[in-house]
Structure formats: structure tokens, C-alpha cells
């Protein structure tokens, strides 16, 4: 066996041992929670690695794409609210279709008319008039939908796909949602300076979150959608199943323990399948002529352009693909949580943490991204107790009840941001190729 392979397997083994150690000391339930989110983080890191590692695109809007995936889980899984479509749903959809038609007409007109003052006037006039007509159509529909039992529903609901594994259909749909948003952003910002893509993606992420927070008719806004369907059985069903209880007892578990572990293991299995499929696809892409072209573009755009490659179109392609993977991961996460809570999406958690994963793992290497996903997620979860422990150690000499001691212990929770930033900077400085470097 060659040396790098041994080293990489060692790295994965170390992460496995770390998680197993948590399992022994803090309980296997906690360890499985880390594994499940680690799998999802690894998928997000794969998507970002596609954009950054393969193509050198800087996307800081991962949070937005993840949240769009979450929206897909709601729209696919939840049942349609009775009467909502009759009350105002069709009006809302009609208004949205009208808005799209207006924008399409403006784009078409703009390409047909000769440049000049007249064209500007027509374009602006159509957009302004279109906006007011759209609002006139849209607002009554929204009011009607949000009036329907606002405490429980007050939104359109979804397709109601909630039978077993069919629930997982929401995941690719989440990828499609994210891909659509990425296409719009990529179309405007790619081909300009690299910084502009960063700023545009930062913006779209904030806007997607504010749409999710405020459009109650779509996903109940900050009132959250809870009780999303799940592809696994519920713990309580298992506990009421005598056959399951008997088998659990045979293994030496109580019914409650066994059911929580069993459900988490099922999730882990499903997520692992998705991760392996995506990893296989990413590896195939990396080693194909397409992947070599991407790296050629990344390393020297001018030379690639001279060879007749359409750099902007290829960038758009890979940007959409990478964002779609983030959308898939977002949908999986929302399914795992069983709820969509727009208020909890924070850029530091969902965008920058994924960046740390990719860079620490090794940008340009798919296995590196997966390793980074697990390792950084593990640190993110475990730094807080470690920080608390460290603070208690530092303050152990201080008098009890001193305000400094209370403040230090109370602030230990903020250590994780600091740690992540430090890890990112140290890796960039001293080992910029990451733990598993690109070959």
C-alpha cells in the first residue's frame, strides 16, 4: 500500500475513534447525532469543494442554498392546507407567473429594441407597472391564505408525500430549488471579478432567509413548520411494537434506548447512501476530461480560454451543480430535524463553517472534503464543552462569585467562533493544501 493512502485511512480512523470516544463517554445517542450531522456536513463540503476545489469559485451563500433545500422538504412533505388553494393559492401562483412573464417580456423587448432613451423608458415603465399590477394580484391571495387557521396552518402546504422512503424525494427537489437560485446568481455575477460572486452570494443568502422568515403563506415564516414527515418509523411506534421490544431486550437495551438508536442508525444509513453516491459521482467527475478541464480553467483561465473553453459557461455549470448538492444536504437536514425554522439559519454556522471544513479537509480533494466535514462538525459540537472546561480551569484560582469569573464562564460558548476562525487561519497559513491534499 502506498504511503498517502495509509495516511488518509489513518486520518479517517482518528475521526472515527474521536466519535467512538464520545460514544463511550457521553452516550451512543450523542455520538450518532454527531455522525448524522457529520454526514450532512460532508455532503455540503462536497458541494463547496466542487465549486472551490475544482473551479476556484468563491461562494459565501451556502446558507441560502441549504435553506432552499429545507423549503423543498416542507413543500414536498407537508399536506396541502384544506381550502387554501381555493381561497388564494391559485391567485398567488397566478401573480407569481405574471411577475415571471413581465420579467421575461422585459428581457425579450430589451434584446429586440434599439438602445436609447425610448428603450430605457419602456423597460422601466413596464417594470414599474408590472410591479404594481403584481402586488394588486398577489396581496389579496396572501391575505386569504394566511387567514385560514393561522395558529396551525395559514400557509399553502405542500404535496403531502409522506409515505416511507418517498419522503426522500424531497432531497433531489431541494437540489433543484438551490440550482435554480444559483443559476440566477451565476448568470449575473460570474464572469466579473471573483469578489463580486462572493458579495452577490452573500446577498442572496440573506434574502432567501428573509423571504423564508416573512412569506407566511409559503412556509409559515418564523412560526415554523413542525412535524415534517420522515422516512423512518417514529420511536413511539417501535416502543409499542412487542417484536421490537423483545429483540432490544435480547441485545440488552431498554425499549426507549433501542428505538432512538435504531431510528438514528436508519437515518445514518440513508445519509450514507446519498453521500456515497455523490462522492462516487464527484470522483468520476474529477477524473473525467470535464474535471481536468475545470482544473485547467481554475489554474489558468487565459490559457483555457485560448484552448477554446467557454470559461463563464463552465463556471456557471459547476456553480449550479455545487449549489444543488448544498440544497440536497439542506433538505436532508430539515427532514432529520423534522422542522423548518428560518430563524436558526446563521451565516457563521451554515456558510463559514462549511468553508472551514473544505479548507481544513483539503480543497480539490473529495475525500478531504468528507474528512473535513466530519472533523470540523465534531469540533464544532465538542469545542463548547471543552471551552467550558478550559474556562473553569483558568478561573479555578479566582474567588467564587467574582464577576470576572462569572463572565468568563458565561462567555465560554463564544469560544467556538474564535476556535473555528483560528483553525481556518492556521491551516491556510501553514498547510494551505489541507489534511488530504489534492493529487
Amino acid at each position: 500500500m502506498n504511503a498517502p493512502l495509509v495516511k488518509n485511512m489513518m486520518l479517517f480512523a482518528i475521526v472515527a475513534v474521536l466519535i467512538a470516544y464520545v460514544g463511550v463517554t457521553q452516550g451512543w445517542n450523542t455520538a450518532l447525532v454527531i455522525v448524522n450531522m457529520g454526514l450532512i456536513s460532508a455532503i455540503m463540503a462536497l458541494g463547496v469543494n466542487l465549486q472551490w476545489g475544482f473551479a476556484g469559485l468563491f461562494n459565501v451563500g451556502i446558507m441560502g442554498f441549504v435553506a432552499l433545500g429545507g423549503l423543498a422538504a416542507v413543500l414536498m412533505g407537508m399536506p396541502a392546507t384544506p381550502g387554501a388553494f381555493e381561497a388564494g393559492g391559485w391567485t398567488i401562483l397566478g401573480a407569481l407567473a405574471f411577475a415571471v412573464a413581465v420579467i421575461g417580456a422585459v428581457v425579450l423587448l430589451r434584446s429586440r429594441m434599439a438602445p436609447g432613451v425610448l428603450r430605457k423608458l419602456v423597460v422601466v415603465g413596464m417594470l414599474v407597472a408590472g410591479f404594481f399590477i403584481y402586488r394588486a394580484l398577489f396581496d389579496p391571495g396572501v391575505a386569504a391564505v394566511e387567514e385560514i387557521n393561522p395558529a396551525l396552518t395559514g400557509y399553502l402546504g405542500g404535496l403531502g408525500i409522506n409515505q416511507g422512503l418517498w419522503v426522500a424525494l424531497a432531497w433531489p427537489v431541494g437540489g433543484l430549488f438551490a440550482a435554480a437560485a444559483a443559476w440566477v446568481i451565476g448568470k449575473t455575477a460570474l464572469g466579473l471579478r471573483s469578489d463580486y460572486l462572493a458579495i452577490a452570494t452573500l446577498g442572496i443568502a440573506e434574502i432567501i432567509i428573509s423571504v423564508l422568515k416573512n412569506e407566511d403563506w409559503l412556509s409559515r415564516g418564523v412560526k415554523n413548520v413542525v412535524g415534517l414527515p420522515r422516512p423512518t418509523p417514529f420511536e413511539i411506534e417501535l416502543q409499542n411494537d412487542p417484536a421490537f421490544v423483545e429483540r432490544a431486550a435480547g441485545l440488552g437495551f431498554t425499549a426507549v434506548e433501542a428505538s432512538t438508536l435504531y431510528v438514528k442508525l436508519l437515518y445514518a444509513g440513508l445519509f450514507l447512501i446519498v453521500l456515497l453516491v455523490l462522492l462516487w459521482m464527484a470522483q468520476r467527475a474529477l477524473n473525467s476530461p470535464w474535471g481536468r478541464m475545470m482544473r485547467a480553467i481554475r489554474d489558468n483561465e487565459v490559457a483555457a480560454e485560448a484552448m477554446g473553453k467557454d470559461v463563464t459557461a463552465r463556471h456557471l455549470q459547476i456553480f449550479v451543480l455545487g449549489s444543488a448538492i448544498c440544497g440536497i444536504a439542506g433538505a436532508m437536514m430539515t427532514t432529520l430535524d423534522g422542522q423548518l425554522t428560518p430563524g436558526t439559519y446563521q451565516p457563521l454556522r451554515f456558510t463559514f463553517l462549511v468553508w472551514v471544513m473544505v479548507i481544513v479537509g483539503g480543497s480539490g480533494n473529495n475525500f478531504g472534503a468528507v474528512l473535513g466535514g466530519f472533523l470540523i462538525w465534531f469540533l464544532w459540537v465538542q469545542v463548547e464543552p471543552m471551552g467550558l472546561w478550559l474556562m473553569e480551569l483558568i478561573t479555578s484560582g479566582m474567588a467564587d462569585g467574582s464577576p470576572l469569573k462569572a463572565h468568563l464562564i458565561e462567555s465560554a460558548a463564544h469560544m467556538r467562533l474564535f476556535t473555528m476562525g483560528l483553525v481556518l487561519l492556521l491551516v491556510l497559513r501553514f498547510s494551505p493544501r489541507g489534511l488530504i491534499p489534492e493529487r
Partner: protein
Amino acid sequence: MDFLNAFIALSNFVIVPAVAYGSQLALGALGVTLIYGILRFSNFAHGDTMAFGAMVTVLMTWLFQAQGVSLGPLPTALLALPFGILGCMLLVLITDRAVYRFYRAQKAKPVIFVIVSLGVTFILNGIVRFIIGPDDQRFLDGERFIVSARTFREMTGLREGLAFKTTQGITIVTAVVVVALLFWFLNRTRTGKSMRAYSDNEDLALLSGINPERVVMVTWLIVAALATTAGVLYGLDKSFKPFTYFQLLLPIFASAIVGGLGNPLGAIAGGFVIAFSEVTVTYAWKKVVTYIVPEEMAPSGLLQLLSTDYKFAVSFLILLIVLLFKPTGLFKGKAV
């Protein structure tokens, strides 16, 4: 029809708040644009630099308040501002020495600088939250109003009041003074001229014996002063909360790009463009329109184009339009 009252209502709810907000954005965008012009990268840590400077100022303000030192009708924060600027200068010099200088020596690509600045964002965010916590902090004292809505109504006998907050007055005056100082520095002093030369053509500047490290250091010092001032003014006018400064990044970048990255004059214009668009698009125009149109035509709705929650969407849309049609910005910025 009552144009006078309509105008007063407009000033009260749109013009005065937008001018104050625009000044804050302009100061923030000036910092971003200077870094972009001299160090040639988009500094994502700018929002958190503002938060750090403002935090030092808040802490000093509390110290002064505890000691009983005050400026009478003016907020004590003004007295603490120089200390905040000093603290922030120290911070940016340390980060430059510890972080950015290495990549400058390597001539790393701009996008690497951007990622590095993200790491700095993380660390600053952690430090600020560690020291002062993630919550809202109050540090405003002194008179709340220069002219309150009630005094204005009594003075003029109009139906509408025009409130002018002390913080808004201070914001506008400070912004004018700071911008005047900055332009005097850039256009009249030797160091300022060497900065502009370095920004225009690095090689030529090096050839004529300009010391790049000195230019970079002076730039960071100026940026720290601008960022702290912007952060404190925003904190006084709205409130100090670490996370809001991170969110300010989007309108600040939008201002800098709309004006043309690397162009100081553009940053100021961009700040006001963004501020006025945000405020006018999210303002409910019912009151103003009711005064202007005849009584029977008075609107029944709020006449609000977008709900205030979408104010980020406004800066984003403007950003997209500029990127699509005029990527170098209104004033010629650096090359795309």
C-alpha cells in the same frame, strides 16, 4: 392638498433618517473602498472591525459614565470615540502583521485574501461576543432630540412634526468633518498622494520610491478610524448589537460597488443611493400621499412597496442591477 405638511412628513420619515443612514453607510463603504484600492481585496471583516471599534467605545463610555464624566447634552460616546479608534487601530495593525502581511509577501490571489478575511471575521466575531456578549447594549446618553416633533409643531403650527434626533445631527456633522479630513489628506498631503499613486499604479509607485509597507500601514490606520466612527454612529443612532454589524456588510459592499470599488467619492455617493432606496422603498407612503391628493382620492392601503424586513433585498437588487449593466459602478471604479 397640503404640500407643506406632506413635505414635513416626508422629511421626518424619509429624508432625515436616510441622510443619517447614508452617512453611516458612506463611512463604512469608504473603509471598504480604501482597502480595495490599496490592498486590492474585498475585506469581509469590515463589519466586524466596525463592531470591535464600537465595542471599545462602548466600554470606554461606560467607564466615563461610571466616573461621572459627561459632555452635557452630547453623548459621552463622543468623548470615548478617540479611545475606540486607538483600540481599533491597534487591532488592525496586529491582524495585518499576523495575518495579511504573509499573503502580501507571497503575492497571493485576491480570493485568498477574501478567505483569510473571513477567518479574521470569525475571530473578531468571537472576540466581540466573548467580551461584550451577543446582546443589545445601550450607551447613548445626553439630550435625545435637537428638535422634537412636539416643539416643531408648536413652533410652526403645522399638523406634522419634524423630529431631529441628536444622534442624527451628530452623524451628519461627523460624517462631513471626517470626509473633509479624508479628502484633504488624500489630495494635499504627501502620504495621501503616495497612497493614491500606489492605488493607481503599484509598479510605478514602487519605482518612484514609495514604501509599500508604509502606505499599507497608513491605510489600515485610516480604515480603523473610519470603521470605528461608522460603527459608533450606527450604534448611537440604532443600537449596538454585534450581529447587526455583520449584516451591515451587504449594504456597505453594495454602496462601495454602486459607487465604483476603489473610488472614495463613489463610496459616498453609493452610500446615499443605497440608503435613500432602502428607506423610500420600505416606507409606507400613505401619509404623504394623503396630504398631496384631493381628499376623495386618499389611499386606503399603506402604499408600502416592500415590507421593512426586505431592506436587504433593496441593496441587493441595486447591486445586481449595477453588476449587470455597469460593473465598474457609477463613478469609474477599478477594472472588473
